């Protein structure tokens, strides 16, 4: 398979041009906080403008401009989204929204009002990003359902050296949580902090099998926000019921799409039957074209100019392998992206897990993901988080993140990022990144130098949680040269 044409890639993003306002003396800025939002394609920007200047009319009317507008949004963009999620025609539908958080909140409300989750039911969430956690915990609290947490487990390190932050979601800690009352499982396709793809198909298969044995059934809500920029989604293979992502992290505009399994959208056939309740104006709800479709979860319309612009993202990706838009070409394109991603994070992972870095106190937060032959493990996204600990603080031989709350940071993550920021030309970030529960479970104390600033250990842990981890998050337009620059600056920041 031919490899990514990095020149062609970077030329598609004006922000990466040597002349962009981000560049300094002709040197492009190194965008390494892509998990917070990627740069946008020129073609996306052009399509937004094209829509607003040429086809900006209300839908459903039979004059020409309205017809084009209708087609662009309801047909073209809808079809593109189908390819992106990977479902067969007629098997799914898309909710377009301002954000994944809001769309999941709408889904939770719809499930509540439609009687799908009731008092005594159980919901399983993780400690990952709040978008696919908060709406469910709030729903549970409103209706009197029980929340269970699928916690992360230790996973083997690459080097064999102990690392209490080498953690991930594993099936064996999930299955025992299932009971006949479990109605919903909400987890992530890839962590925005830990950066590893979850084996979704295997997990869902095992979960559905167990639920069958228990005499119950559940629905699965998958958060693919941190997955979608790097790997091809496949809701059909995964057998999930709801799948969400945000286009602004996938080279596009600030808009979200949520896949819903078509059969779940059916209006109730008898009163009292649990269903997805319509959130839209009552006179619209009466129409089958609304009451049986994702439109019932979209109160008010999404920005049409943005919906239309998403088509540019898929055209770009398929264009990378010189193809027209199709499921096959999109899949091939993502394979190319993924191969490139492994190439760029390999040096970073190698650096962060090196003897020198380890001795100084660097610990990768997540899967160190290097095989014995030095290659990056399959499913590792180019999102790498780490902390810098004082390895002389106790419990450094502990392998369980959740019990080692006496470990201390050597440097604030903020100060490491500050050093990088001061060096100029590179953007990375620190924090908990809204994976609040995950951050809490790391249980790190602030650096020794900050000892006297806090009233008690609780306050100290809180401050350390806010400080979180250092995160370097790349995408396919980043280069090995950029990563080498990042490593060089990090070495300085860490005193290596």
């Amino acid at each position, binding site marked *: 398979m031919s490899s990514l044409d990095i020149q062609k890639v970077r030329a598609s993003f004006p922000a990466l041009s040597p002349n962009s306002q981000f560049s300094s003396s002709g040197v492009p800025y190194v965008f390494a906080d892509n998990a917070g939002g990627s740069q946008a394609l020129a073609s996306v*920007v052009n399509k937004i403008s094209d829509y*607003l200047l040429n086809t900006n009319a209300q839908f459903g009317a039979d*004059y020409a401009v309205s017809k084009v507008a209708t087609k662009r949004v309801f047909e073209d963009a809808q079809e593109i989204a189908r390819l992106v999620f990977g479902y067969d025609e007629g098997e799914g539908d898309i909710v377009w*929204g301002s954000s994944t958080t809001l769309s999941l909140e709408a889904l939770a409300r719809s499930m509540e009002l439609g009687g799908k989750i009731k008092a005594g039911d159980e919901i399983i969430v993780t400690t990952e990003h709040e978008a696919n956690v908060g709406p469910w915990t709030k729903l549970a609290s409103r209706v009197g359902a029980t929340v269970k947490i699928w916690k992360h487990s230790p996973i083997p390190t690459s080097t064999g050296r102990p690392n209490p932050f080498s953690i991930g979601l594993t099936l064996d800690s999930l299955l025992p949580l299932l009971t006949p009352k479990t109605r919903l499982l909400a987890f992530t396709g890839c962590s925005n902090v830990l950066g590893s793809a979850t084996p979704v198909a295997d997990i869902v298969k095992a979960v559905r099998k167990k639920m069958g044995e228990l005499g119950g059934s559940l629905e699965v809500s998958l958060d693919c926000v941190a997955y979608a920029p790097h790997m091809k989604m496949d809701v059909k293979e995964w057998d999930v019921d709801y799948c969400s992502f945000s286009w602004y992290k996938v080279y596009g505009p600030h808009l979200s799409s949520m896949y819903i399994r078509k059969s779940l959208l059916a209006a109730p056939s008898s009163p009292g039957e649990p269903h997805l309740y319509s959130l839209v104006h009552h006179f619209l709800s009466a129409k089958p074209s609304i009451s049986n479709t994702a439109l019932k979860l979209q109160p008010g319309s999404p920005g049409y100019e943005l919906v239309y612009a998403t088509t540019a993202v898929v055209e770009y990706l398929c264009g990378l392998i010189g193809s027209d838009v199709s499921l096959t070409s999109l899949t091939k394109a993502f394979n190319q992206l993924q191969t490139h991603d492994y190439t760029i994070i390999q040096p970073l992972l190698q650096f962060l897990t090196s003897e020198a870095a380890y001795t100084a106190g660097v610990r990768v937060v997540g899967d160190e993901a290097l095989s014995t032959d030095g290659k990056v493990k399959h499913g590792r996204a180019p999102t790498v988080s780490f902390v810098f600990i004082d390895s002389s603080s106790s419990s450094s031989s502990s392998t369980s993140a959740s019990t080692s709350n006496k470990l201390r940071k050597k440097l604030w993550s903020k100060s490491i990022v500050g050093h990088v920021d001061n060096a100029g030309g590179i953007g990375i970030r620190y924090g908990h990144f809204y994976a609040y529960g995950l951050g809490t479970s790391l249980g790190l104390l602030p650096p020794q130098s900050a000892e006297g600033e806090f009233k008690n250990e609780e306050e100290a842990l809180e401050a350390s949680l806010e400080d979180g981890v250092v995160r370097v998050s790349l995408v396919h337009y980043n280069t090995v040269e950029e990563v080498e620059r990042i490593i060089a600056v990090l070495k300085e920041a860490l005193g290596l």
Partner: protein
Amino acid sequence: MTLANDLDIEQTRAHFPALRSGHIFADNAGGSQVPKDVVDRISDYLLNTNVQVNVDYSISIQSTQRVAEGRAAAARLLNAAKPEQIILGGSSTANMENLLRQFDGDVNAGDEFILMDGEHEANNGTWKKLAARTGAIIKYWHPVITSPENPFSVVHRVEHLTPLITPKTRVVAFSACSNILGSVVPVKEISKAVRAEAAAKGAQKVDISIDAVAYAPHRRIDVQDWDIDFCMLSFYKVYGPHAAALYVRSPVHPSSSSVAHELVYGSTGILPYLLSLTPINDLQATFDAIASHEKSLVDPLLAFFTHPEQRARGLMIVGSEDAHDIGRVPTISFVIQGENPIPSQEIVKRINRKGGVGIRGYKYSCTTEDGVQLSLDGGVARISLVHYNTVEEVHKIIEILKEIIYT
């Protein structure tokens, strides 16, 4: 005589590339066209400041500032006292859905909401949903027929609103201008009357919620002068992108709504565009000039529809026929009934099929103060213009109407 503060129609239209095609945009109540500067700002955001907001690094400071500018600009458009009183969202419907959640616990069973009969669901629907959840009761403010020759010449008057107020009134929600009837209602006067009546009758807390979506393209909003609690604004109807602002006089929680940052920054182009329409660089001057130009669009249309020939043919405006009312905006809804009726959907089809112009049909129903339900089963046909439309375009529309009615 051309006044110095009259609109320069050529200069105005030059801001809108979409108008170059010569197509007559006559469904502006469904969404207006967008000035180039607004589009350029969206592009600028995505190309030059597209990073996570509220983060330390320098580019984020710029993007954060641009989003803040969006709120500040919306505050100016609405004349809100503080940007903190503005919630930005993807749509007015979504904003109201969000607002609804702030009311949990603040409404009791038996509380009364007064809504404007016949008005847009973004406002009415929100309060109906809240009433269904809380056991509050809905009462309707009905319009009256104003022309003896036209049973659809309905207008809402404040004297039919105030008697509806009781000690249990909790919310009064209405449109500053109907997207169908096209008449501005005197919001300030109504707000004052409502509050006086509420005080006299001992109503504890009355929130006034205004739908300014169909009003905003035509007249200046002033939430402080109006003394109201909520006000909805959809940017895509007032020369902006598909995003919306909601004014909340006393925000309970920090805003939890979400909206595309590039569209927020795009919306900052609306205010400079409006201010540029007269040399005075003042919103009131702009909207005075707009009102004056709109009158030149409304007058020929009203004259056409109220002409005895058209009356005999069964053409009837749904809304006020009064040409003296400066609050009559160029949103003209109508039906063709009488001996040879043409269903509204058919009217719309025939007009649009002519090519070169686009209008739309709309469902509408309401009951008058006297209890008469307007018989509008097939809905209305609606011509909705704004200040970039021209008198020539109006005459063309009238010619097309004549063709489809009389041939």
